[in-house]
């Protein structure tokens, strides 16, 4: 998508990766602003209540996990719009496979991850080998998964066992397991992007596929692996959701708008749509912004329609704040 190469020092900086992405200013401003409003208009309900504070994070878990995967494909200058339906497929398949029986849990988890890997592989192959624009490719695979899922849903049933629901509801010490998983996924994503050869290749290939190829990188393989990682995070997100809900339904993915929201939070977090730049910590901040907005608007009793408007404005403004100085034309 872009023909510019990435300056060497930028690669080095992103290699260290701990540089604070500018999106955190947004996060801080919105959080502080939200808390002030909360104190003024809702008697400080959020700040005085640890459960509500923790819930800001729990709200962010499902979106956060899949957004980490989305960050991978977007750094590779690709995109994945099929994640919402991968999440639905996972949720439905998991409850169907487990049938409420704890002994089936490992088998089910392995199987849904395999299915996820296959979806990622197909996405990656269509994008790299058939040269289909990733937007259309994953829109298409998403439609295909949705069609098969909705068409056969009547034949699905089942639920997850109580023990599996611990994933969504229990705590390890004071910290809910779900938050630990989110943090683990983010840290793992950061590690892969910043400290492995694959990560460096991904930034290179995303910055310029041509340049990457010329410098001897296996561009296709890198993009395919990024797609597989993304689908796997969608599966993990689906597993978390089904552990919260107890049984899967085909609408959980599209109803959560995980496709467009994961893209939105990733770009808010500073990952470029044209690839080559960004990181998972920025994405995490993007996800947290959405979580904070949800909580604050809930507490203030503001209309959902206005919240939708607010989200739209944040997406545009956040991305504009990075891009408007850029010399390159956007399209």
């Amino acid at each position, binding site marked *: 998508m872009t023909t510019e190469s990435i300056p060497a020092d930028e690669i080095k900086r992103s290699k260290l990766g701990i540089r604070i992405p500018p999106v955190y200013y947004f996060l801080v401003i919105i959080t502080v602003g939200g808390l002030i409003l909360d104190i003024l208009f809702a008697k400080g309900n959020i700040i005085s209540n640890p459960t509500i504070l923790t819930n800001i994070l729990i709200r962010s878990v499902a979106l956060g996990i899949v957004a980490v995967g989305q960050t991978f494909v977007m750094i590779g200058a690709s995109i994945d719009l099929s994640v919402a339906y991968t999440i639905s497929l996972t949720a439905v398949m998991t409850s169907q496979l487990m049938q409420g029986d704890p002994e089936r849990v490992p088998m089910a988890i392995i199987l849904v991850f395999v299915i996820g890997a296959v979806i990622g592989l197909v996405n990656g192959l269509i994008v790299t080998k058939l*040269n289909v624009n990733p937007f259309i490719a994953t829109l*298409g695979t998403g439609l295909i998964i949705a*069609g098969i899922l909705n068409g056969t849903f009547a034949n699905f049933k089942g639920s997850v066992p109580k023990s599996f629901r611990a994933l969504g509801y229990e705590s390890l010490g004071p910290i809910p397991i779900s938050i630990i998983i989110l943090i683990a996924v983010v840290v793992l994503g950061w590690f892969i992007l910043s400290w492995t050869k694959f990560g460096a290749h991904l930034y290179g290939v995303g910055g310029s596929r041509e340049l990457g190829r010329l410098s001897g990188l296996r561009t296709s393989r890198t993009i395919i692996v990024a797609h597989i990682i993304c689908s796997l995070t969608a599966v993990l997100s689906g597993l978390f959701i089904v552990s919260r809900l107890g049984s899967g339904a085909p609408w959980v993915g599209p109803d959560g708008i995980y496709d467009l929201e994961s893209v939105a939070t990733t770009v808010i977090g500073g990952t470029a749509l*044209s690839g080559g730049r960004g990181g998972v910590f920025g994405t995490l901040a993007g996800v947290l912004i959405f979580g904070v907005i949800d909580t604050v608007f809930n507490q203030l009793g503001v209309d959902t*329609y*206005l919240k939708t408007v607010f989200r739209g404005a944040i997406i545009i403004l956040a991305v504009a704040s990075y891009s408007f100085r850029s010399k390159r*034309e956007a399209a």
Partner: protein
Amino acid sequence: MTTLEKIPSRQMTGILVTIWKRVKKIPPVYLIFLVIIIGVSYLNPNFATLNGMLLFLRRASPLAILAIGQLFVVASGGFDLSQGSLVTLTVIGSALIIYNNEENSYIAIMILLGIGIIIGLVNGVVVSYLKVPSLIATLGMLLLVKGGGLYWTGGAPKGYLTENWRYFGRGFIENVPVFGRFPVAVIVFLIVVVIMTILFHKTNLGKQILAIGDNPRASQLSGVKVKLIRIIAFLISAFLSVVAGVMIGGYGGTSILAGEGLEMQSVSAVVIGGALLLGGKGSVPEVAIGGLTLEAIFSLLNLLGLPKPYRDAVQGLIIIGAVAYAAITSKRRD
């Protein structure tokens, strides 16, 4: 015929080769459309009648019009995801302005066209001057329009869409020679196709849109006002979205879900119409046929008795196939 026998066989193959070359030059979307229309007509003889075709065109034209608007943006290298929400806004906003009073209908259409132009302008400015990629800018606009529209109407359309407002999507002109009754929507569709074909293929604007889609920097160097052209592309897309909204609301009546998911369908139609995503190539008539083709495919799958979920899946396969085909053929030419 004797003339045929006189032609030596070598010459004969020569003719066949020229015919084949001609056929190959016909954009594939026409052939696909023809095949699907034949399929539909075979399964449903009603369809092959003049009246059947007109009724099909009536309901397919809004999608084709949306696709033409989408083409202007796609050809310039972007996407417009705000189309569907603008269609919904047109329907519920008009119902609110009309408020059961027929006299307000045309005012409502004017106001909505004005709102459409503003939204297109904002899209264009955000992409051109703030340099936000259009995928993100129009995604944000989708949320703004959707939330804003529902807030404006308080969550529910308050009035009926009057018959004179709905005329463009639903009405017929009676006693037309040959045709009997002729749907107004088809007239609107033809007008849009003609104007947009001229605009896109016969004026400088179209060439410049394709140029900035192909290579923005080069076209800037050659004196194209890239920002202005891009803004115009978004304006046209938004304007046509309102037109399509009036037709969809006219056809189907008040609904807060009128435009749901249409942006993705219009992108699909553009792709089936042979335009290149990320810009540089496209044709208005082909994309219009692409829109009709997508609608015809839905009809065909229904006639084949495929339940709706599988139709989604087939749509997915078709758009992947169309883009893969385009990618492969363009590679071969290189």
